[in-house]
């Protein structure tokens, strides 16, 4: 399983998917990890026990997955379907469909709804309690300016990032139109968007090795706090190699966040103090996804080639689950010592 290079830190999960990993998520209730893959499967692992607990096969590559509660979850597939997965019975059914591959799925506890974004340029909200069948479960369809690339929820807010660098911010209580229509501050294609756990804003990453830290509050004071930083770049032979930042994951307790890029590195940042807190040793290949466990003690890293350089031979796709040390993720505020009186 391990390649010739020194093993990347963290325990490698056994029985990983046989093709690229598109996303992975820890449950909010346990250390179960749900993993969606290009091999058309969604797998449920018990990360602590390093055991595969369930597997679901779809009609096409699965691009995203999320938990509903510890016994069920949802998936977004390239076969245009949005599916509900019941782990205990190993059963799944189709909740509904889009007109093109479904790229993202998120469940909102606040609204009790499932939200999906697709390359068909729409966002759809579903009520998963309904029996299956699109007419029963679909709550609404909301057109987007472009294909949806990423979405993230916090509280009652939903942030949708699409192609063409559009960003729409919605209030889930009133989806008729976006609360804010924005443009990404970054000049390059958006890769991932994640809201801060404290609900004040979101982090947005692009294919150009940069992350922008944004705020929802449009007042001058809040907007003055926004900034962007470069990361996941390498300089060699007189040129800068700039990697896409594929994944962002916020630590649930400290509010610091990890970013993973095509350079195979995971960096942990303190957004408030604008410092990098840690960098984990390089993983065998691009980082496709990251997820912190509900207590922030584990970090799951999907080291899976993301085809940024086309179809080519690559390191085997693997999932590493590592224990997180406080020192790697805890913010260290600047202290100005006072001289002795």
């Amino acid at each position, binding site marked *: 399983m391990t390649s010739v290079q020194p093993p990347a830190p963290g325990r490698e999960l056994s029985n990983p998917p046989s093709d690229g990993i598109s996303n992975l998520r820890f449950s909010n209730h346990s250390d179960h990890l749900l993993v969606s893959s290009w091999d058309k499967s969604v797998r449920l692992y018990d990360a602590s026990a390093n055991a595969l607990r369930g597997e679901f096969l779809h009609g096409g590559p699965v691009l995203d997955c999320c938990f509903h509660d510890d016994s069920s979850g949802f998936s977004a597939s390239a076969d245009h379907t949005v599916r509900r997965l019941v782990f205990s019975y190993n059963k799944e059914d189709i909740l509904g469909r889009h*007109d093109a591959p479904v790229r993202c799925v998120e469940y909102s506890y606040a609204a009790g709804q499932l939200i999906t974004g697709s390359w068909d340029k729409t966002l759809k909200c579903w009520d998963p309690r309904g029996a299956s069948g699109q007419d029963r479960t679909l709550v609404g369809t909301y057109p987007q300016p472009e294909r949806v*690339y990423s979405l993230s929820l916090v509280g009652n807010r939903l942030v949708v990032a699409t192609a063409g660098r559009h960003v729409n911010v919605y209030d889930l209580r009133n989806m008729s139109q976006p609360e804010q229509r924005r443009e990404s501050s970054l000049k390059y294609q958006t890769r991932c968007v994640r809201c801060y756990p404290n609900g004040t804003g979101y982090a947005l990453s692009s294919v150009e090795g940069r992350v922008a830290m944004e705020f929802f509050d449009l007042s001058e004071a809040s907007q003055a706090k926004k900034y962007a930083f470069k990361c996941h770049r390498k300089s060699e032979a007189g*040129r800068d190699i700039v990697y896409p930042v594929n994944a962002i994951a916020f630590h649930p307790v400290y509010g610091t966040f990890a970013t993973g890029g095509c*350079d195979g590195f995971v960096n942990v940042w303190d957004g408030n103090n604008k410092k990098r807190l840690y960098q984990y040793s390089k993983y065998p290949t691009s980082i496709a996804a990251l997820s912190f466990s509900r207590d922030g003690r584990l970090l799951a890293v999907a080291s899976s080639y993301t085809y940024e350089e086309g179809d080519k031979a690559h390191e085997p796709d693997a999932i590493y689950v590592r224990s997180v040390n406080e020192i790697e993720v805890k913010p260290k505020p600047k202290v100005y010592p006072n001289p002795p009186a």
Partner: protein
Amino acid sequence: MGKKKKRTSSKVWCYYCDREFEDEKILVQHQKAKHFKCHVCHKKLSTAGGMIIHVLQVHKESVTKVPNAKPSRESTDIEIYGMQGIPPDVLAAHYGEEEDDAPSKVAKVDIPSTSLGGVVPGSSGIGYPQPTLSTMQPMGGVGYSYNSAVPVPPAAWAVPPRSHPWYQQYPAVSFPPPPPLGYAQQPLFPVQNMRPPLPSTTSPALQQPSQINPPGLPIFNPAPVSQPLFPVVGSNNMATQSSPFSAPTLSTSILSSSPTEVKGSIDAHSGANTSVTGNYQALSIPGGPLINSHSYASGPNTGGPSIGPPPVIANKATATEPATNEVYLVWDDEAMSMEERRMSLMKYQVHDETSQMSSIDAAIDKRILESRLAGRMAF
């Protein structure tokens, strides 16, 4: 040596333990040996932050206090290098006190100039605490027999501690002492044999949580270490990157933006992260400030008044490189995302009935709708 009160305020002193030194170079060596030294392997790092990270990464231990520091100065959050990084209030307080104690301090400072000559085999302190620099280490070890009482050619050297952002470390002592100010022009890179290899591969080891705020950088003000750790680009048009820190942070890009005051030489550092300009690398090492500093020649060849500006070291070649490196985007297709491109590969084409049927259904529905609108159908 003048015994004027003024003299003592121009002496450099160590933030952590309040000891005074004749010049900054010795101060730095003191700091490295007393405050920035790893207690496990005795490796001397260049800053407290660097030492902490080294201990964490290599020995897996957490260090919370700066060793050998006075109780109120033990915080590891403050970035000190030589006289750089001292918070203004502490700085003011120190000099305020100095005025009163001047006489006694001066007396202390009059150190017998002993055999110092041999001590500073140019190498010493300059040893840039670079973990990967095998060449450096021995030097660091050897030369360090300083105590604060090192006499250093005075007068010409008494550089107001705060005003120079640059320190230079010369491994060999062939450079005549530089004038107190204006060295901004001198590139420092001891071109000679300091060629610590700094290939990007080793950087992971060097990567330190970017708490290190190399004080030697142009934007540095002795004041609060408030510079963002990672090169920050204000979305609201913050001007150029102000922190050439990219050097320390591995994956951050080199700040291609031109340095503020300093010159092209800074760019050199920026380039540091790469193995390109061999010589530079070493110095822009993570945690290392150090870029254009001038050595206060305390070596055997430099006793005596300053001779004039040291010869400009020939690394100008890199120093004058255009500020921007060529940028290569690993993914440059703005029109499609990586997943969309991947999906178009044959092996991922979805051929199942369902999706085909649903798209046919959709097409039919659409046509019906259009016809309805055209009023051709009854319903």
